[in-house]
Structure formats: C-alpha cells, structure tokens
C-alpha cells in the first residue's frame, strides 16, 4: 500500500503546489502508516522532496517531449500507481492537475474527488471535505472504491516539512496511442501566475480604462504579486482573458487578495473567496465587497494606490 503524489514543476524546478501536494500526501501516509511515493518529470534535483516527506521519488525523463502531454503523463503515473499498489493518489488543483485528475481516475480505476480542502476525516470508507457551489459551500463526500484520486485545492493545506531519506528512482515515460499532441505553448515566463502567487492584485471597472493599469501593475510589482481583473474588464478587452477571476474565470486561493475598484458582485466573490485575507479599495462605502473583505479603505483608487505603492517601496 502507498500514497502516490504527482509533483508539478516548471523548467525543472518543483512548484509550490508540488510541495503542498507532497505535504498533504505525507500526512495521509503518516495516518495510514504507508509510504509516500512522489512522481516527478524532468527534475534535475529532487532533494527538496527529502524535506517534504517522500520515501521514494520516481523521476521521469520525457526526453524530446518538452510539453505536458496529458495522455503520456497519465499513463506513466498509472504505471507507478499500480506497481506501488497506491490506494490514494494526489494531484494539485492547477490547470494541469485538474486536467489530469479525472483522466487518471478512470484509467487507474479510482474514484475522483476534486476541490478537496482538508485531510480525510475517515479512511474506511474514504471521506473528505470538498468545496462546492464555487466556494459558497462545502460537502463531505465518501467513496467505497478501493482507490481514490484527490485533487487538492490550492493553499488549502499548506507546506509542511518532514525529513525523509527518499530512494531515488527513474520512472518510465510511457507511450500513448492518443492522437492528441501539444504543438506549442505561449506563456509569459517572466510573470508570476495567479495560480502560483501568494498575493494577487485585482482591478475592476472602477479603474476607468486600460491606460490606468499601471496602478495595478506597479502595486503588484512591489508586492511580487500576480495581476487579475473582474469579468467586465476582460470582456471590454482592457485586460487578457487569462486575468479574469471569479465564478466563470480563474479561481484565486492566494494568501492575500487586493481588490481595487471591484464592486464585489456575488460571481466575483465566489471565485476569490478561498483567499485567506481580502483587502478592498473602493470609493463607494456601500460596495458589497466590504462585506466580504477583512480590511478595507473607502477612497479613490487614483489617490490611495499611488500612496500605497510609495509606502511599500519605502519599507523594502
């Protein structure tokens, strides 16, 4: 028996979400007294997993295939899941993790739980808490299936260190007969993504136009934050789609979410609710966002934000 975790990486470096998944898997391995098996792809140095609880690391070299090929990744992970007789498999809630999860579950004959926000409350039967209704509620879900795949919500468990001496192995990159091929990738490598960011700075229609976005970008830069926007802002073409957050956009689960000139419509709040601390800057004291926020400033963004940027620069 074992717990298998798929550890995500970017350019050969393990991502924060990867360490969170390892930490969560370790906690399950501790409670069920089983081993934690980590599966990584194209990692030069997997030693960091020794301090996040892995007992075994399978690193798989995808050679010339430099893109995320969901079918081949899935086949390779299923191979290890079967070999190690895994009862629990954990993936992250990144775009790739949520893509992989359901496919992996079917191919590994496992039940699938997405949006998991806590450790299982029982293992016999496997019972776990998940968010639903776009973070407006939670449910406890159960499965009697002999194997489960869990997609862990971002920032729901955190990163926990535990020293282990992981055995280092090389895994096979399994072929697939699927016709699906990734042909190219278009990704800003210099910018931190909403999924990976500890802090997200978000702008709404209150910023009046794309020409004022330097306020959002400059604030994000001093904070090392990702930038996001409300739906109308992306519908109007002021900002790219990829920045649209909310019920119909990307989910945000950062430590700090700063909303500027965003009214706080229910569809916006649903998507950002699982952020730990929310700050709102809005000129209208009646804006619904004030009911959802932890800290707020009633004021004009064009006056408040430049001051905030200046003060933050001064303390750096």
């Amino acid at each position, binding site marked *: 028996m074992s717990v298998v975790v798929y550890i995500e990486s970017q350019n050969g470096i393990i991502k924060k979400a990867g360490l969170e998944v390892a930490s969560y898997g370790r906690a399950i391995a501790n409670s069920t007294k089983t081993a934690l098996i980590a599966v990584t792809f194209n990692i030069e140095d997997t030693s960091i997993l020794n301090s996040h609880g892995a007992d075994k690391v399978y690193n798989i070299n995808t050679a010339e295939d430099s893109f995320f090929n*969901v079918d081949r990744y899935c086949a390779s992970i299923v191979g290890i899941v079967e070999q190690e007789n895994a009862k629990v498999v954990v993936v992250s809630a990144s*775009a790739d993790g*949520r*893509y992989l*999860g*359901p*496919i992996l*579950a079917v191919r590994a004959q496992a*039940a699938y739980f*997405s*949006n998991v926000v806590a450790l299982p409350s029982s293992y016999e039967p496997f*019972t776990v808490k998940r*968010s*639903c*209704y*776009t*973070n*407006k509620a*939670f*449910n*406890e*879900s*159960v*499965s009697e*299936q002999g194997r489960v795949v869990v997609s862990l919500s971002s920032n729901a468990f955190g990163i926990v260190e535990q020293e282990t001496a992981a055995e280092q192995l090389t895994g096979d990159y399994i072929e697939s007969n*699927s*016709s*699906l*091929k*990734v*042909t190219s*990738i*278009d*990704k*800003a490598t210099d910018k931190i993504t*909403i*999924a*990976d960011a500890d*802090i997200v700075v978000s702008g709404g229609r209150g910023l009046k136009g794309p020409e004022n976005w330097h306020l959002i970008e400059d604030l994000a830069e001093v904070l090392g934050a990702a930038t996001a926007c409300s739906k109308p802002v992306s*519908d109007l073409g002021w900002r790219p*789609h*990829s920045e649209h957050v909310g*019920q*119909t956009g990307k989910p945000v689960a950062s*430590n*700090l979410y700063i909303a500027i000139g965003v009214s706080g419509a*229910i*569809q916006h709040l*649903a998507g950002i609710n699982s952020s730990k*601390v929310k*700050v*709102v800057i809005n000129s209208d004291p009646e804006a619904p966002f*004030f009911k959802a*926020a932890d*800290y*707020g*400033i009633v*004021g004009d963004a064009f006056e408040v934000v430049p001051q*905030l940027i200046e*003060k933050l620069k001064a303390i750096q």
Partner: protein
Amino acid sequence: MNILVCISNVPDTTSKINFKDDNKSFDTNGVQFIINPNDEFGLTRAIWLQQKSGAKVTVVTVGDASCEPILRKCLAIGADQAIRIDAIPEDGYFVASQLASLCAKEKYDLIITGRESIDYNGAMVGGMLASILSIPYVANCIQLDIDGTSASLQREIDGGKESLSATLPLVLGAQKGLVEESDLIIPNMRGIMQARQKPLTVETPSDVEGQTTIQNFEKPQAKGPVKLVDAANVDTLIELLQNEAKVL
C-alpha cells in the same frame, strides 16, 4: 458532422445557496436554474459549426424532468434535438458513464462539455467521458478549428495558453474564450416557437453505479466585519497586513 453538447442544469450565479433535510440536500426553493455558463459557451460554438457546415447539434442532460426547461432553451438557441437521460446526477463518474453509453449508441464526432459546472465545480465529466471512450480530451478549451477530421485547439493553462492538435472524435471542456460573452445567442420568438416542435426524447439510464456520494453539506463560517482604514492612512493598512494578518 454530429455534435453532442452536454448540458448541466445549475442554480443561477446569483442564487443564495441553502440546504435542507438536515443539510443533506440542496434547497431549490426560490432558486432559478440556468444552463451552466461554460456549457453555454460550448453550445454557442456548436451552433456556429451548424451554421457554417450543417453540423447536427444534439444537447443532452442527465437529470429529472425539472431539467427540461433548460433543454428547451438550448433548442430555442438553435440545437436540433435534445435528449434527457432520466436519472439524478449525483456523481461525476455516474454522469460520465451515462453519457458514454449514449455515445456508444450514436456516433458523435465532437463532444462538448463545460470546463466545469458552477454547482459542483468538479471539472470531471469531460475528462472521464473521454477516458471511458478512449478518445482525446482538451480541458479549458478557448479555441477550436476543424478541418475534415483534424482539429486544432487551444487550452488555457496557468499563465498562458497551449496549442494542440488531435483527430476527431474528441471531447472538449468549453469556457469563455471559445466564444465571447457577447456572442451568446439570446433566443428570439421564432427560435422559441420552433423549439416546441423539436424532438426532446427521454431515455432510461444505463445500469452503472456512481463512485462517490455526498453525506452532507455545510456553509462557510460567517466572517467578522471588515476593518476599515482611513484613506489618508495607508501606513496603517500596511502595518495591519504585516503584523496582524501576517501576509506581507
């Protein structure tokens, strides 16, 4: 070309979420149901293929009779026919298996699901369906071009997008970007009248079991009131974020 668009009946995005029967089930009282927004982006894309190349568009939902109004709406938007698989959609695997049984009977070249539904947000039906059928799946799909039996697509990824190619049949998970908000079709009177004549068939579910069950629901704990900081005092905000919230 035969296109199947899988539709989920979900509470309107503004709905207040409440539970009943000792928090064991969703309280539909006063809740308006809509076509899952991601599915509607997918349906619109399918209608474009119908208009351009005469594709036949079938919409399907797994649900009880209360889902029929949204199927009629899909017909009014332009779908050619609707199927309701008469079962309660309690688990993603169950739904995917029901859809897979339908796809085994009728050959579809393109199967469109939504990226995720806004009730369970599982993002699981599309990927599971494709895996059961052993055909490709493209999640978070923001572009689709079809040339004969080849498709080129784009998937939104964290921080950018990815271009893919595959041969039909395939399953995709639609989201905004595949079409824009302003492209969504609002049914006109003629569409609504025609929808009444279009076939809506009810099928009995196939004999499969789900893999998960929901024991109970709960709502998040009520949040304390916001701490307001004076606009002239941004220092105080920074200090609170550093020392109290400890997020800076």
